[in-house]
């Protein structure tokens, strides 16, 4: 076990290093440079551009830039080129905003998709199965942003649910309960929308996985024992059907950073996804690369988590 962890971490560190190199190169290969974002701005004199380039080491060779950048990142000294604020501080602030959206969306997705998919599989071809299939394919094929605007129209016009931002403007000094209530209402639509597609896709996966397992010989053995149908389905079939989803569960982690750019933009949610989007438009290298680095770390941690979960759930897998 410890040997597995040590070997695994070593390999993941190498991967992480390669990720930093490649993402750094890609950013610098992309046309445009932070100093030239706004060349028509009369305030941007050539001297200013030169000063800017020197301040952010853009006049140095790439390998030096690479070393300087990651030195700053690890010592916490890198700052956003846009507003000179420390990158980690900016990200941390936005992360706290994104977290409730991510948590609510994930919770909704994973608690609803499984019962829906299992139920559809057990009553295959029945009314419930066809009904969920209809809605699932509807949500999968309807573009999220389009559906979002429909819902906004409906909700704002008829239900008076707030939809913009994280809380109502001027509510900062309201009593805690009022603020909480207000925030929950703001969370409703973006979280619901963000999870709708997730539920649709995941419930279909759960259904097909369950259907595959139901026809396995060991399920027939369980039936031959004369066990009640619930035991056959939920003890013998479901446990096997769940195995592939442990892998997916670990890969949820990167969603913390990637978030949902579209949903956050539509609902003016000041989250990480929007921060990344704005940083890319502004060629704000430190923010982009730092987010990229964090995302890579989360992906690698996620795969490790998947491996560990899998080994815990499936006796056939041994970590060595």
């Amino acid at each position: 076990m410890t040997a597995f962890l040590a070997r695994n971490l070593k390999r993941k560190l190498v991967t992480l290093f390669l990720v930093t190199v490649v993402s750094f190169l890609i950013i610098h290969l992309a046309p445009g440079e932070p100093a030239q974002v706004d060349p028509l701005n009369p305030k941007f004199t050539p001297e200013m551009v030169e000063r800017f380039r020197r301040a952010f080491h853009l006049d140095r060779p790439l390998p030096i830039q690479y070393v300087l950048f990651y030195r700053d990142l690890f010592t916490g000294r890198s700052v956003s080129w846009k507003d000179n604020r420390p990158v980690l501080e900016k990200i941390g602030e936005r992360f706290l905003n994104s977290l409730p959206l991510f948590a609510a969306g994930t919770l909704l997705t994973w608690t609803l998709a499984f019962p829906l998919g299992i139920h559809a599989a057990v009553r295959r071809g029945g009314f419930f199965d066809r009904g969920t299939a209809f809605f699932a394919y509807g949500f999968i094929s309807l573009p999220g942003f389009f559906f979002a605007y429909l819902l906004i129209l409906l909700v704002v016009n008829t239900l008076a649910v707030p939809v913009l931002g994280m809380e109502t403007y001027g509510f900062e000094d309201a009593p805690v309960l009022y603020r909480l209530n207000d925030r929950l209402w703001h969370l409703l639509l973006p979280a619901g929308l963000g999870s709708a597609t997730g539920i649709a896709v995941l419930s279909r996966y759960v259904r097909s996985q369950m259907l595959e397992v139901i026809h396995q010989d060991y399920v027939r053995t369980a039936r031959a024992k004369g066990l009640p149908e619930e035991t056959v389905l939920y003890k013998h079939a479901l446990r096997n059907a769940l195995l592939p989803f442990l892998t997916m569960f670990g890969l949820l982690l990167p969603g913390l950073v990637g978030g949902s750019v579209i949903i956050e933009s539509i609902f003016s949610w000041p989250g990480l996804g929007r921060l990344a989007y704005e940083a890319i438009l502004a060629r704000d290298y430190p923010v982009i690369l730092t987010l990229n680095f964090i995302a890579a770390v989360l992906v690698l941690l996620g795969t490790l988590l998947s491996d560990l979960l899998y080994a815990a759930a499936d006796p056939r897998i041994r970590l060595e």
Partner: protein
Amino acid sequence: MASANPGVLLAVEGLTVRFRREQESFHAVEGLDLTVRRGETVCLVGESGCGKTVTALSVMGLLPRPAAEIANGRIRFDGIDLAAGAADYPPGIRGRRLAMVFQEPLTSLNPVLSIGDQIAEGLSFHQGLCARRARERACELLAEVGLSRPEQRLSDYPHRLSGGERQRVMIAIALACGPELLIADEPTTALDVTVQAQILRLLRALKEKRDLSMLYITHDLGVVSRIAERVAVMYAGEGVETGPAEEILRRPLHPYSAALLDALPGRGKRGRRLAAVPGAVPHPAARPPGCAFHPRCPYAEPACRRERPALIPLPRARAVRCPVTAATLGGKDAGR
């Protein structure tokens, strides 16, 4: 408990199982009669695809629904009708009085549950044993089916066991609640030859010890000679011959049974080329008219192509679905 014949434990009468797939519909088993008496071992013999497993699954109420259904016939177990309700199998029979061992020991055990769990859960459910008692009982069962170090094996998972060991565990699961009838569906087919012999010996010993009745499904006539008291031969979904095992092995009446015996290697045939039954078993959807065996039959007469023969009862508790051989051989036999 209104059984016509008190010694009969399982009585299958005129069983017809229909399969439906998209457009086509066919009878995988048609008009099959089969009886198993208490304490008796009956072998159901036939080539792959002749409906042996479908028969067993019908008795267990495990036909794959909704593709398959019992279209006709009755299955009575100790006087209880098992095929009456389409969906409701009578409770308290499957896994308790009636148990089955499957053909594929490699895939028939749940890979994520320990074998102790898998044996104990039937005991907990049917006999209401507490977890500790059920585990003790599972351990005894593992010892009974001849697994070494049963205490340690309880917490093992199926992938750590060999094929033979897994089949032993399957037998332990089937025997857990002390069934009266054990259905064994080619339990040795997937195993090595030496292991086959061990499993066969084990089943025979268990049968004696527990006074079991057994319905043993096989395509191997060598197995029949070692285990069966009576034999039922199936061809293309029909029962073509039944009778005491010794009689059928010594003097098969149906041309198909005779051809199967001819195809068996034996001492007397050393050095000679083994006979094979020409042609292949027809798919149940494309059953030939008349006698289903006539395209492969050396004794076929014109009438065989037209008329579907009935099962003809003969002396010595035999019956054969072939008027041609029943008249010649059967007549001689009867006159002796």
